[in-house]
């Protein structure tokens, strides 16, 4: 088995996918530099450097996808997706429905997400719940190099629009570029098992909408995704010392949601704690409570999410994003009360 960093795994998967399907093209800001290896191998016609014109090139990707290509568009940070929302909300997500299922939009939007490196509330958002709210969009959030590659393969093979989010704490190049800037005196709480790990020799797609149990337990189910999965696993180790055995689910896909996996686990433990780096209100954490209630279960429920605009100050940022202490505290309350 090979071992790779998170970003390397994505690039490796892209090498395989682009070699196998000449209709895959990449468009995005600074890809001439960021994706230089891909540009060298596949040429300038397949890796297109764009101006800072998100609304334009993401909108263009929609119809490029409708007419035979499989565009992968890069919007550097998911926060910048605000500039291009019309293309996603009113077009990419709607065409298949509007055309009576006759016209599909096989495009992928790749963007970085997440905080924990001191970049402020306009560069550290998660927004996956906000995006998943829109019917017609698939939203993927890998938490390991293996999943990062496998989900990218799946996203590129998918026949509808996919938002693929890459957490900056897992992505070495982005973290160094935006957080470290070649300094070695600033510290980040990078989950090592998420930033580097084993990958297959030949990439296989990971089925979209399939979560995975990262840790077995009987007392409590933590449902999570992205970097928060690793925080949850760390918290579970602490909880075990206190006699609380925690099951940790990594959703991997926000939309579609692996309802059966969640319901199955929660029906066993009777308790669900959602750890979600995205905003707390009107989002994924509430959706998870709803699907459990709809399944007719009565459970104990709690959530650790981002409640407000993410502060710039590292200390305030730490308190705002889900952290191990908050998860442990919430879990103990859930089990004991």
């Amino acid at each position, binding site marked *: 088995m090979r071992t790779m960093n998170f970003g390397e795994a994505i*690039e490796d998967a892209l*090498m395989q996918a*682009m*070699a*196998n399907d000449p209709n895959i093209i990449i468009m995005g*800001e*600074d890809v*001439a*530099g*960021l994706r*230089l*290896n*891909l*540009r*060298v*191998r*596949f*040429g*300038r*016609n*397949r890796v297109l*450097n*764009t*101006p*800072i*014109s*998100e*609304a*334009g090139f993401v909108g263009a990707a929609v119809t490029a996808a409708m007419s035979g290509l499989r565009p992968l568009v890069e919007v550097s940070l998911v*926060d*910048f997706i*605000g*500039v291009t929302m019309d293309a996603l909300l009113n077009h990419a997500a709607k065409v298949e429905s509007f055309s009576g299922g006759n016209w599909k939009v096989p495009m992928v939007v790749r963007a970085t997400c997440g905080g924990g*490196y*001191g*970049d*402020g*509330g*306009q*560069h550290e958002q998660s927004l996956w719940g906000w995006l998943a709210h829109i019917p017609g969009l698939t939203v993927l959030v890998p938490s390991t190099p293996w999943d990062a590659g496998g989900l990218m393969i799946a996203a590129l093979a998918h026949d509808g629009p996919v938002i693929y989010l890459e957490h900056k704490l897992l992505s070495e190049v982005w973290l*160094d*570029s*935006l*957080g*470290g*800037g*070649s*300094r070695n*005196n*600033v510290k980040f709480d990078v989950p090592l098992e998420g930033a580097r790990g084993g990958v297959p020799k030949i990439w296989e797609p990971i089925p979209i909408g399939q979560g995975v149990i990262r840790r077995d337990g009987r007392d409590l189910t933590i449902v999570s995704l992205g970097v928060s999965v690793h925080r949850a696993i760390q918290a579970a180790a602490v909880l075990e010392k206190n006699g609380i055995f925690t099951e940790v689910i990594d959703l991997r896909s926000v939309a579609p949601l692996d309802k059966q996996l969640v319901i199955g686990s929660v029906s066993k433990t009777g308790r669900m704690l959602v750890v979600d780096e995205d905003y707390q209100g009107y989002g994924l954490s509430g959706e998870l409570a709803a699907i459990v209630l709809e399944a007719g279960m009565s459970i104990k429920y709690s959530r650790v999410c981002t409640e407000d*605009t993410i*502060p*710039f*100050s*590292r*200390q*305030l940022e730490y308190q705002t994003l889900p952290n191990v202490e908050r998860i442990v505290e919430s879990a103990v309350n859930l089990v004991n009360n």
Partner: protein
Amino acid sequence: MENPINPSVLDSWHFYSQMLRCRLFEKQVMRLWQEGAIPGEMHLSMGEEAIVVGIVDQLEDGDAMALDHRGTAPMLVRGVDPVLLLKEFMGRPDGLCGGMGGHMHLFSPEHHAASSGIVGSSGPAAVGFAIANQRLRPGKISAAFFGEGATNEGMMLESFNLAAAWKLPVMFVCKDNGLAVMTQSASVTGGNLMDRAKGFGLRTIDVNGGDVEAVWEIANKEITRLRNGEGPVFVHACCLHMEGHFLGDQLLRFEHPSMSATIKMVIPLVKAHVQSKGAPLRERTAVLMETLGSTRENVRKHRSKEGDPIPPLRKKLSSMDAEKLISIEEQVQKEIDTIIQQATMPVEQMGEQ
């Protein structure tokens, strides 16, 4: 340092002192960032000082500034407390915005100054400030600061049109360094920006962004026209970003590449060049050569420091009155030292002041 100079008189000594103030302040910001005391990204205004001083120095109460991610120098020149700025950059609770915003999200309501890290957003922001000024503060203007990269954002072009259609008192200031983050702007931009702005019905002016006196003179005329309701103007000024897009800029790392970083980069590149299934070999080589060429050019430009607005003015003033120059430099240095001392004082000592 409040300067009691009449803002309608060209005073190169004053310009020099303001530019130096920005430069020395940002050198300290750079040091604190390198020491790890400032987190995250850091986009400096270093190299933009002539544009900033030439324009912002002439703004007055009620005038608004819509800033991009390089807000430090405009905020300083506009009169925002430098100590509060620096504390904000360090994320301190006693910073300008309570440590909530950081250097990309600076806000000063009393100066009608707002910044954003979203490229292009200063366009609509300046339009809104101008609409409010037209109704509430007649004669007051707004200025939008942005790079040439932002002129490819739809919202910026929509703002040009709004301002022209409504004859708003907006000065669109395009600070053109030729690079949109890492991308050569010329390679992703159609036509030229002056023609583009003209097409929207804006008055257009091209000025040397390295010459503070030239910028000041043009801004002086144009601000008067804006105050008189003659409609918006597009000011195009070329400049150099002395520290790249942000501190730690990937492109500038090629100036002193480390052996390990080079090896890490070369291995996958060689692989990409020879692997089967892909573009013809000629195209692959062309991509490599193109990248190498633009990297070399970037490093050369950075080393040459061509476009740095400070040395030429310094030379000119030195020949006029060397003693006065040194005295100004000492004064500015003293001010910066005091600012740094106050801003880096631990929070618990603040009460003792």
